[in-house]
């Protein structure tokens, strides 16, 4: 069995209440060590207030060839954007 430590993906939430964001990956034997390593590798300059680590093999990712079927349907639905509707200025801010 390979003794190479598994790969973990690291997500960090910054100071200002935004969502966790993917920042990179690292190797660690388990979640506890992944957390410790993430702290050392990705938050040396106060970059975050919360860390998530997920073992990379647990992430399911869409494939580049799915781009068409996945995202094209939304292109024809411009009415989902507020600017689609003409509202008279007299109606005030809306």
């Amino acid at each position, binding site marked *: 069995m390979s003794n*190479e*430590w598994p790969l973990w993906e690291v997500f960090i939430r910054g100071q200002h209440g935004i969502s966790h964001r993917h920042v*990179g990956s690292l190797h660690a*034997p388990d979640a506890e060590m992944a957390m410790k390593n993430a702290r050392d*590798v990705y938050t040396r300059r106060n970059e975050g207030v919360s860390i998530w680590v997920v073992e990379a093999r647990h992430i399911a990712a869409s494939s*580049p060839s799915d781009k068409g079927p996945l995202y094209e349907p939304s292109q024809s639905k411009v009415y989902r954007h507020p600017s689609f509707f003409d509202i008279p200025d007299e109606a005030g801010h809306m």
Partner: protein
Amino acid sequence: MYAQMVQSTGRGMKPRAEMTEEEARFQDRIDAGEKIEPKDWMPEGYRKTLIRQIGQHAHSEIVGQLPEGNWITRAPTLERKAILLAKVQDEAGHGLYLYCAAETLGVSRDELTQDLLSGRMKYSSIFNYPTLTWADMGAVGWLVDGAAIMNQVPLQRTSFGPYSRAMIRICKEESFHQRQGYDIMMKMAKGTPEQKRMAQDALNRFWYPSLMMFGPSDADSVHSAQSMAWKIKINTNDELRQKFVDQTVPQAELLGLTVPDPELKWNEARGHHDFSQPDWSEFFAVIQGDGPCNSERMEARRKAWDDGAWVREGLMAHARKKAARKLAAE
């Protein structure tokens, strides 16, 4: 530059007429400034060249800790020691960001490490020079990190997404490295005559090896032509070297130090400094393994890898046992 003489396909840029449909589409995406992501289709040559380049860059960050680590226990004050420690820790981080980027191309961390330890992969020639005095910590930060920044700033725009993102992160942190180095140089250059002599001596020893960091002229290199078409190399080595000299000369003047090149002078017509080339036979000797510290550096890396084996294995065995116990309890 932390990656020197990276071999590409060796055939120069492939003419469009010879490209397959997939290759032409790939080149169109790069020309349009799109980023290539790990799961996207890419030519095998692009993948291989990138693994070589990012791998060599990562190895340089890791081996680059050694010349500076040499001075951590002997830093002149507690503050300087803490700063140097933080800087060396950053270098470890930079190596890790880059290994991660290389791994998205389908090579494992252990394979990369093995290729470094076996000598199949290289690291930058600059780290094969010794750091003899505390002033060298100043010269390394100022010149070596300065040269690295010169190369890394344009690489933030490189076509491969994970490499570009690693570069952006690295550049943010790199400026601290150069400034702390220049700060040491200022202190020494304005110190006692003996301290100033040490600063001058450090500049004398690191000037030409720093110029070598960019690699020999690649104006006619078939490897560089292909890499530039793929936007994994943005500027020629000579462009970056010139830029580095133009930036560094006034900084040396400000310190009251002399760049060790009698031919160095401002060329009004070119709008650049004229300067002497380093001794390229020395460069090739260092790259081949005959630099002053090559064997010491490789020995340190091999020792770290071998001595760490029981930790890597032990922690993995512990993790497996813990996972099995958890599974049994469920």
